[in-house]
């Protein structure tokens, strides 16, 4: 870590604070916004997320080394944390801090993208099932029952066995495809009540087709449960990614995902605790922030279900 890295890190913190303040300023005018920020963990959670995203984007400025660089395999493997190596080096003499910073891109990116896939499918299936009813609804919901019956870890293990070397985009797609079941149930429940409302009859009377009614009129009104389940779902995806990568079945090895970093340092845990501990801490922190923000969002957007 040199002076510039520290300055960049400080800059990222300031940036994150600014982002939180801006969001706060813009949402203060709405009831939901005020209710969101009244939640005690909302502001710190949002700050942690903004901070990690900023650091991930500014990775080349914040990281003193390249993520794949083996600095000196003879003398600098498993080096303890110091001023030069903020979080030490891993068994392959790579700088843990640099890998952590670049790993934020991978882990956060996979979490966000997979969640987009899952939420898109879940919302579409839930809306179609809830709106069309008749035979479509039971058929789709039985499918969801099957999906929910299989623990996600096992579903992923079964699917991952298909590929010898899993490319990251395929991996993201697979996590998304195994993660939409719960969302679709939530959305369906919401749509079931929305479809009886007057504005839906009005849209239909005006000649809107089924697709248009579902995606332009019904779904936007079911946004609240979708947003909440997305926020909470990213955390789950990150945990799943970490677990699979830890088993060597997720992101391919030299790529610095946080799960891979834990796997890399695992066997040297007894002599070099830092290379596995810090990435795990980073995952816990980000997932905690996501859960905190998700809780606050639920309270803000869905006051009927004020729980947990």
């Amino acid at each position: 870590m040199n002076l510039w890295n520290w300055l960049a890190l400080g800059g990222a913190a300031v940036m994150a604070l600014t982002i939180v303040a801006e969001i706060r300023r813009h949402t203060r005018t709405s009831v939901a916004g005020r209710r969101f920020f009244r939640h005690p963990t909302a502001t710190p959670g949002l700050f942690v997320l903004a901070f990690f995203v900023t650091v991930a984007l500014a990775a080349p400025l914040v990281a003193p080394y390249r993520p794949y660089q083996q600095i000196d395999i003879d003398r600098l493997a498993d080096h303890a944390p110091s001023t030069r190596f903020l979080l030490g080096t891993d068994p392959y003499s790579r700088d843990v801090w640099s890998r952590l910073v670049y790993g934020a891109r991978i882990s956060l990116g996979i979490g966000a993208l997979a969640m987009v896939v899952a939420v898109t499918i879940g919302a579409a299936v839930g809306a179609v099932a809830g709106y069309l009813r008749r035979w479509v609804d039971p058929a789709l919901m039985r499918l969801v029952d099957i999906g929910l019956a299989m623990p996600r870890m096992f579903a992923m293990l079964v699917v991952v066995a298909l590929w010898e070397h899993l490319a990251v985009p395929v991996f993201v797609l697979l996590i998304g495809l195994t993660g939409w079941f719960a969302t679709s149930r939530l959305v369906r429940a919401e749509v079931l009540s929305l479809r009886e409302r007057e504005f839906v009859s009005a849209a239909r009377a005006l000649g809107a087709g089924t697709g248009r009614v579902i995606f332009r009129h019904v779904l936007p009104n079911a946004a609240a449960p979708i947003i909440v389940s997305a926020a909470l779902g990213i955390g789950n995806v990150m945990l799943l990614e970490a677990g699979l990568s830890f088993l060597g079945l997720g992101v391919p090895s030299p790529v610095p995902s946080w799960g891979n970093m834990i796997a890399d340092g695992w066997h040297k845990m007894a002599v070099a605790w830092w290379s596995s501990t810090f990435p795990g801490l980073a995952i816990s922190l980000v997932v905690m922030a996501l859960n905190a923000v998700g809780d606050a969002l639920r309270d803000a957007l869905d006051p009927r279900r004020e729980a947990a």
Partner: protein
Amino acid sequence: MAAWLVRRLAASIAIVWAVATLTFFVIHLARGSPFLPEQSQHTDLATLDRLRREWGLDRPLPEQYVLYLRNLVRGDLGESFGLRRPVADALADAIPHTFTLAFAALLIDFAVGLALGIYQAVRERGVGDIVLGNAALFVNSMPTFWLGLVLLLVFAQRLHWFPVGGPSDPVLCPRVDSLPCLLDFAWHLTLPALTLGLVGAAGTARYQRAAMLEVIRQDYVRTARAKGLRERRVLLVHALRNALLPFITLVGLTFPFLLTGAVLVEWVYAWPGMGRLAVTAILQRDYYVVTGAALVTSAMVVLGNLIADVLYAVADPRIRVRGA
């Protein structure tokens, strides 16, 4: 009630069958087969051909599927290529380990979670509530296997309080058949159970706190207080009884979580359960072990949900029989 139960049971069986079908076809789509030249230690093609025929892998897929289902009904889950024994046997060896681990974890989960949740609800918005609430949120956000690694580092490698892995001491207690060996087994079980249980307890505490808070505000709790009952009695008898209802659903929800979490925890602690078996099998492309493990796990989840539903209906007369 009986008709409802039969319908639920039929639906559960249908789900298990669907899962079996799904896993069967997905795994057979796998490019990697144990008897393709590039993945086997046998290099000569004649031997590979013979092996493929012996295992029935040369027959058309529908035929293999029918055979698979017929065997399934008889309780035969196929043969493991890697272990050279029936999958059902391998699973039968592994399941008790997964179950003991899950059960021990469940005990820790509910005991710690309930106590914390009730305490937090009683001290709502106090210092204890806030500190414990944030701690629970943090622990609940940890990757289970990472918590396992940290506990291993601290309590096994540094403090030497607990062993580093395995179900029992391989030299002194290869089988658990005497009291000292039972203690040894419990000693080995502590860290993995604690790992799974604590993460679960953090979630349970959040859940229980919310349920308890909802009940405390009800009129009958105020009535109980107005009657002059002691606070302890009001909380633990009147309030807790009703706050425990949603808890039954939680049992159904916790079960898949424990089985899923157990995969990684078993891996970290070298615990010879189903998760470890499944992961090893995947790394070796061992078809039927993977399908078998996935199938048995799904069946257990479906069964867990069914039991939770029945318990719920028994415990709460308001929810009796509303179709499937």
